[in-house]
């Protein structure tokens, strides 16, 4: 049977990528891109910026993976990068003035297009109203609660991993997740009965 990198688990891929295996690195990016995209979506990044920030985060991951000491801390490390990049972009945007690119680029063909939610078939299956309510309820949460609940429910991170990613302790994570849940229960009451 032909060996395929796709059969390796994440830890094995990280070990290989740390040694310079580009195929393993490509597979890691392939597996993580949706997570990064979805996390940014619920952190309330602007739709037209999500793709740019996602690329920036994945590039940082690819560039710095050799510096990651323990593959088991990958998820925490990735989330640290996501959070830092997200808030960096917010800060820069507040300071920057709109710039015009003078490079000769074909404006009609951007490298990547943000997925168009309206044109995908899944739209039929998802209860749009519920999704909208959930998205807005998460947006309304204070930042630390928002990050904690996204990491837990969207990505399935353990409390320890969330604590590492947010530079806090497990008790704080437990309390933030509970607070987030209490608020979400209140906001989403009509959908929970």
């Amino acid at each position: 049977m032909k060996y395929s990198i796709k059969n390796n688990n994440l830890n094995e891929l990280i070990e290989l990528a740390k040694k310079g295996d580009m195929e393993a690195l490509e597979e890691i990016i392939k597996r993580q891109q949706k997570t990064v995209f979805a996390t940014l979506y619920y952190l309330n990044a602007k739709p037209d910026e999500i793709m740019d920030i996602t690329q920036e985060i994945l590039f940082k991951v690819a560039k710095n993976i050799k510096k990651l000491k323990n593959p088991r801390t990958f998820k925490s490390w990735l989330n640290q990068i996501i959070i830092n990049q997200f808030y960096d972009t917010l800060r820069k945007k507040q300071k920057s003035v709109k710039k015009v690119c003078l490079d000769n680029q074909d404006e009609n063909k951007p490298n990547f297009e943000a997925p168009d939610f309206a044109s995908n078939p899944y739209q039929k299956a998802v209860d749009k109203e519920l999704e909208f309510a959930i998205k807005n309820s998460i947006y309304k949460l204070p930042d630390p609660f928002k990050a904690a609940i996204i990491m837990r429910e969207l990505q399935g991170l353990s409390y320890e991993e969330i604590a590492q990613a947010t530079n806090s302790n497990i008790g704080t994570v437990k309390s933030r997740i509970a607070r987030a849940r209490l608020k979400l229960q209140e906001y989403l009451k009509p959908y929970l009965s």
Partner: protein
Amino acid sequence: MLKGNLTCEDISRLLLPYIDDKLSENKRNRVAIHLRNCPFCMEKYRIIKSLFDKIQQRNIQRAKKFQQYALLSAYCDNEVSDTMKDNIEASLALSCDLVERTHKINTLKKLLNTTFEKQFEYIELNLEKSIIKRLEDEKLINKIKKLFKRN
């Protein structure tokens, strides 16, 4: 600095810090002496003190309720120790209220999980090739830069 016996007016000012236990020992004693001898101020003290106690009690109850909720929430995430898990399960067997609260947390979890799954199920992202290309380009540029520096 208050000298001599305290007046009822002094007591009005000192009553809140007295209840909050924020007075020096000397002042605290003098307020206590006045209260013992003045039924009017004593009544005022009793009313305010009972209000304070009620608020404090409510805060303690609220904090306890949240602690309990946080524990249930961690239990639903399977993030409690085995001993704690046994304790919680024993409590659940005895309390319908706790069962209902746990059920609500699990319903919320399920609602979020299924929505997240559906929301991104059909999104196709193919960024891996371009990221690797960008990384290789950057490596090449750095190599060229180093070469130029050496020369």
